[in-house]
């Protein structure tokens, strides 16, 4: 998990984000809650999936890292590609979690969890 987190922090650096990302952006209701990069998503469903992830991984600090990544994103295409790489790496390494019956990668679960904090 630690290795995983370091890799995510590396992503932040690669994206040009400061490690002192504005916490309001990361955990508040603005940039991190801008889900347009993911297309049309059912936010009620996202909340349900995110809550389930947090229930299974209550100490998952990597969710914070993902939230910062999303908040710091200045290029949707690059961010999506980075997430895609992480997701494939998760599946390859067997890092998966079952949410509402869906077998998803840990990274997907963390994104759902980060997004579920919006408006909550």
């Amino acid at each position: 998990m630690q290795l995983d987190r370091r890799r995510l922090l590396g992503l932040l650096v690669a994206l040009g984000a400061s490690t002192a990302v504005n916490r309001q952006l990361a955990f508040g209701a603005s940039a991190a809650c801008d889900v347009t990069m993911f297309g049309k998503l059912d936010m009620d469903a996202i909340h349900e999936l995110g809550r389930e992830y947090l229930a299974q991984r209550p100490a998952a600090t990597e969710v914070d890292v993902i939230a910062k990544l999303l908040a710091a994103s200045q290029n949707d295409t690059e961010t999506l590609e980075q997430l895609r790489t992480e997701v494939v790496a998760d599946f390859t390494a067997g890092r998966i979690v079952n949410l509402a019956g869906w077998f998803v990668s840990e990274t997907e679960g963390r994104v759902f969890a980060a997004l579920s904090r919006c408006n909550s």
Partner: protein
Amino acid sequence: MLIDTEQLEDGSLLEAKVIIAGGGMAGLLLARQLGDAGIDVLVLESGGQAQDSRVQSLYAGKMTLGGPGNAERNMDGYLIASRMRYLGGSGNVWGGKCAPLDPLDFERRDWIAHSGWPVTRASMQSFYDRACDLLGLPHFHVDAQAMTGAPEPLFAGKSSRFTARPRCYTRCSGAVANSTYHDYKLAASNHERVRIHLKANLTRIKLSADGQRVASLEVRCLNGRTHQARASTYILAMGGIENARLLMVSNDVHRSGIGNHSDWLGRAFQGHAVIEHEQQPTVMLIRSSAAMTPFDALDRGKVHIVLGVSDAAQRDLKGTNLTISMPRGIGAGSGVGVTPQAFARRLAGSKISERREAYFVIEHTPNRDSRLSLIRDELDELQMPRIRLDMRFSAAETERFTPMLTMFATELGRTEAGRLQWRNGAADLVAAMSLSRHHMGATRMAVNAKNGVVDEHCRVHGVQNLYVAGSSVFPTSGIANPTLTLLALAFRLGDHLRPRLSA
């Protein structure tokens, strides 16, 4: 020729060179085979030409279904509903799905207790081909690509864990429109060398005093008349449950039943279980709907594929056989039913996706505790002890199912082919099972009497003139629907018997 046995005088003697007990798919094929060789054959069929509830009730018994850590299910009704007792047998309601067993299914797998056949997949090929010819099917190849003309499309060569397994439907099955099964029955009943005695119930096999030969059969009718039947060779072809029941009931000489030298008779009963759940459908997401066309099972005349765990993956994981069928697309969903799909599609940059109904079939491995036994104090109308089936899945299935399913989900994600939805855990497995009508293993085949009931030629160990046909001889059951294999074995048995009986 069809004969109403109830019309015969009480105490009649029925004689032929060969007597086959059971007028189902295997029995009728063997009758034709031997008849074609000029051998007089007599078939004893319990029912008439149509279903009769009184006859069908002879199948009644008790049944439970269970597995470690799972709640036991009472399934008494399955014993009546899963088979048919009239001319044509369960072929009258068979859906017609055909597939051979996989090569690994025949092999001894050191991680699966009691696995291994005395025959190989390669040695069965010619018999499978003849069974396909009989059923109007293309010949099955081990390699699905040779049949479909294309590689497995979902993983497109990116996964060594799964492989395509071919399947095809025949019209020679009672449950389909424009069925040719009536002709199948006529081919036996009109055969000049074949006499089919309807309403003739085999109730006891009488052995010689030394127990090494069948001397005669006791035949009873529901009108109270009892007859005797004699032949030089006898074949039981009454289905995967009744074959064992008759051998257990006939304990006059061998007290534990005929062929029961090592307490295998009735044990290792296997049945295929479809894993599904009505309230929580198994749904998957894919990137390309066009890629899924070879999985479509709507066109009965066309070969379709299912995904199977590859032989290499089974070896690596010390797993069991498992298939994933994705026969049709399902409509759009909403909420959490589709959101992970939408998210994954966005990440993968895919513009198309399809939701597919999916179901899983797991191999039921040989388990001595999964067994048939007699209820000695409950007799049917013919004074036969009723049957009890305690069908048991073991840790081999319950503990391996989730890891293998997770492997499928992992491969879907890793190759960006899709996502899988399956909510249930190992403790819910038995509750999610929908049992097929496949009854296998209770008179298992083994070279040595220590390990089975019949030998590699399907002859009952220790009895010179008694053979068993049908899926009860399967040592292991793989995933494939058993009919094609039991017909292939019937061809094989016919080839074995013909020169011996003609001499």
